[in-house]
């Protein structure tokens, strides 16, 4: 057993030091009836590295790999090229195998990285401050709603129809137990976002309005009027960004006066990973920082006056405050935050802007090409790298048929909103710098055939 260094001689010597006859003596407090006598049913004994690698490789080969086919899926998880040095650096043992930086004097590497990450995220989102990351965008979104309740002492949250339906589901699950009242709606398969309706719904009981930017269909709307309407009723505006690369091309939510901005950072450095681990981004205005959930890294000095970094304001956290904690989160996505931060450092502002421009230009070309396919209509006039097509047929079986032709065509709204007939013909298509003109042509041709 290659991971276990003790020899049988070691074990005997150690038992002698302890004063025990056998290892069973050390399990003396486990009642006899609870001791497992036989092996675990069906689980074979230990296996060689080669054998395990082969088993896992067989499972891996049963999947259609995004990079092997024309690929157009988005809706909260995006395929971008990650520079080789990102994965190389995060595999350094000093990062990979470190724990939470509880002893700051020997965790300055992780802590400085988190401080840099917080600054990068705050600048990208346009907020005053940001935390050291959350589990993912969906849990960050829910934590933002509860934070708005703490800040405003009001309980009615209005969730935009353009918010990712899984994020809405997470919020609905949690609200059943916390007393938050959620007002939700469905998106419409058309050009208009629901900003005006959201504004009309705000009243004196509203704690917050949650709006996605760009929204689930890819549409972009100016959030400033919504922010003003929220503030007029002492409610907070929460903006959700599932594609952070977009913020290299469009105004940040903070610039439009959003109070809390959360997001999914997966696009930078992390990769698709079948949905996780991802990295939640969370920023807010300075005045709300003590109500912000999650871990925070702060700058300070050491006994010699040298700059150093520590985890701070942790008295808000649940492992310390027990039943008075501000949130359920007890960790962060440290390694994913590191990947995000390295990727962002490699890009820099110039690189991020160029990457965003490439994504947008590719999406514009793809939208124009696909809209020429008979039976296809582009319904989103504004978008960044993701847009929605209305097909002449139900989109879900079309996506299925295209998968049989080796094309992963996008996300059908039927998959996201089962049973909603008026959305069933919608297909959300994402284009990134990894999408080639040939991929788009292959999709257009195949789409024309399956729609015919």
């Amino acid at each position, binding site marked *: 057993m*290659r991971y*276990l*260094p003790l020899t049988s001689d070691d074990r005997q010597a*150690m038992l002698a030091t302890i004063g*025990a006859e056998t290892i069973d003596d*050390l399990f003396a*407090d486990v009642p006899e009836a609870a001791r*497992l006598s036989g092996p675990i049913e069906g689980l*074979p004994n*230990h296996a060689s590295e080669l054998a*395990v690698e082969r088993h896992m490789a067989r*499972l891996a080969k049963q*999947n259609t790999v995004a990079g092997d086919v024309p690929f157009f*899926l988005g809706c909260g998880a995006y395929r971008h090229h990650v*520079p080789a040095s990102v994965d*190389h*650096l995060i595999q350094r*043992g000093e*990062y*990979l*195998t*470190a724990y*939470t*930086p509880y*002893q700051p004097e*020997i965790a*300055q590497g992780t802590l400085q990285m988190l401080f840099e990450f917080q600054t990068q995220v*705050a600048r990208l989102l346009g907020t005053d401050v940001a935390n050291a990351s959350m589990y993912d965008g969906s849990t960050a979104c829910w934590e933002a709603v509860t934070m708005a309740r703490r800040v405003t002492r009001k309980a009615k949250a209005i969730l935009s129809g353009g918010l990712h339906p*899984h994020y809405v589901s*997470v919020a609905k699950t949690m609200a059943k137990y916390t007393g938050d009242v959620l007002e939700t709606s469905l998106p419409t398969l058309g050009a208009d976002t629901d900003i005006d309706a959201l504004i009309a719904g705000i009243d004196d009981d509203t704690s917050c309005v949650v709006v996605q930017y760009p929204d689930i269909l890819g549409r972009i709307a100016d959030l400033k009027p919504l922010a003003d309407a929220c503030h007029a009723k002492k409610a907070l505006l929460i903006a959700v960004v599932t594609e952070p690369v977009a913020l*290299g091309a469009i105004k940040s939510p903070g610039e439009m006066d959003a109070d809390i901005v959360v997001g999914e950072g997966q696009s930078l450095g992390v990769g698709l990973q*079948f*949905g*996780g*681990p991802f990295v939640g981004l969370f920023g807010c205005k300075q005045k709300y920082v003590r109500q912000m959930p999650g871990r925070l890294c*702060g*700058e*300070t*000095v050491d006994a010699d006056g*040298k700059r150093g*970094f520590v985890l701070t*304001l942790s008295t808000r956290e*649940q492992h310390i405050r027990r*039943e008075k*904690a501000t*949130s359920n989160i*007890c*960790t962060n996505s*440290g390694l994913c935050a*590191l990947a995000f931060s*390295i990727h962002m450092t490699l890009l*820099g*502002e110039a*690189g991020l802007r160029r990457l965003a421009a490439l994504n947008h*230009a590719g*999406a514009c070309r793809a939208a124009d090409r696909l809209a020429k396919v008979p039976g296809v209509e582009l319904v989103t006039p*504004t978008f960044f790298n993701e847009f929605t097509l209305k097909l002449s047929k139900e989109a879900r079986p079309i996506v299925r048929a295209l998968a049989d032709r080796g094309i992963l065509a996008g996300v059908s709204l039927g998959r*996201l909103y*089962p049973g909603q007939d008026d959305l069933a013909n919608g297909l959300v298509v994402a284009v990134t*710098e990894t999408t080639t003109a040939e991929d788009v042509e292959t999709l257009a041709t195949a789409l024309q055939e399956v729609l015919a």
Partner: protein
Amino acid sequence: MGGGSGEGAPATFTGNRALMLEEPTIFEIGSTDTTGVDFADGDVAGSRLGDLTRKSAIGLPGLSEPETVRHYTRLSRQNYAIDLGLFPLGSCTMKHNPRLNERVARMPGFADVHPLQPVDTVQGALGVINELATWLIKLTGMHGVAMSPKAGAHGELCGILCIKAALEARGEGHRKVILVPESAHGTNPATAAFAGFAVEDIPATPDGRVDTAALKGRLGPDVAAVMITNPNTCGLFERDLKEISDAVHAAGGYVYCDGANFNAIVGRVRPGDLGVDAMHINLHKTFSTPHGGGGPGSGPVVLSEALSPYGPLPYTARTEDGYVHLIEEERAEEFSDEHFGGKLDSFGRMVAFHGQMGMFTRALTYILSHGADGLKQVAEDAVLNANYVLRSLEGTLDAPFAQSGPCMHEAIFSDAGLPQGFSTLDIAKGLIDEGYHPMTVYFPLVVHGAMLVEPTETESKAALDQFIGALRSVAERAKAGDAALKSAPHFAPRRRLDETLAARKPVLVWKDAPVAEAAE
């Protein structure tokens, strides 16, 4: 001022000391027009951005690739990690991270697949989830498992929501009290409160276990559940857990077990046999997925037959034809009949997608590498190592539960024997100078000045002997009143950091103004 490593040596021009390197932030060395990525040439015409085109500067510095590699490599050298030495953080559990796990997680079939791909294009990925779920169920003797929680505390919340949903389905939503023993993890009461329950403490006995009589005496029609940690945070096995479970069930409540310490008993004890209804498993602890300086974690929750129908979506289910189905909201009813006797009544979705897939591949790799015999050996060696540490040091440091029976995977000490003016913190900082990450300090709260040492099964006897020698030496220096210990560490990249200043005047993002000015 002054002091630090190399007392008496002249200051260096760079601030570096040979291999101990100072590193500025990216904001001091990068510039917004530098980039370490080359993009394809070509036009980027076209705009469908409405009138939202970004005009203002963002303020994101970039570095070239060599500068980036150097920056993060230099920073990495200021971190302690399990790859550098023993990392005895009790209840956090830092064991060797096998590199095969990393290789497997990076296979494109797992790393480069999208969560919303058509289900028949991801049969291998769903197969991993299903296979891992199967082993977790069998290793714990439970009935079902919710795979999607993103971390241990998230798993606790999942388990408590299952309990709440089950109570409501029984028409007993009025049960509002959750009993939490003093020795439980701090996250337990926070989770219960977050889910809308009232939390009541149950005292610990002098020997470090739940006061069973007090707990039984408090059971009643208002009690929803008991949250218990086993092995508990004092490193002891809760001998009465089965008796407690029976009493809780008889009183109409459920038993939540914090499974953070499952690594002590895996392969030897199945919590299901002890009457547990829900238990989260920190995959990063028991099954060695890397913790990366603070996550990601992963906290699947195993469930009893009574709670299984209420767990979160999505589920996976393998049918007889070998196909692995993904059960989301729309298919819940169909699978309820086939797999849950018509009772599937999920409380909903907890995360956007399917959970921590990258952790699942690593955990499954670990389980298959160890197998049934190896997992049993893991628990045995973890317990052996912890008892070895306990018995080797009980004469040097106060060990409050040394007479309470064998410890499990972690040994607890306290500051009781230290002279006036010396604290647990001084011992911890002294250990840093000895080249070790300190043990968990000031936790659990039930022990004053606690020091919780968890060596894990991946430490050799020689490594333990050196650690024991180091800890003994530091403790003896404290007992001898060695004042130098009060200002330790002396040899780390930083001396003691001012945490009070950081909390009083938080500087959370980089600004051009130096921190010294902000401080005073």
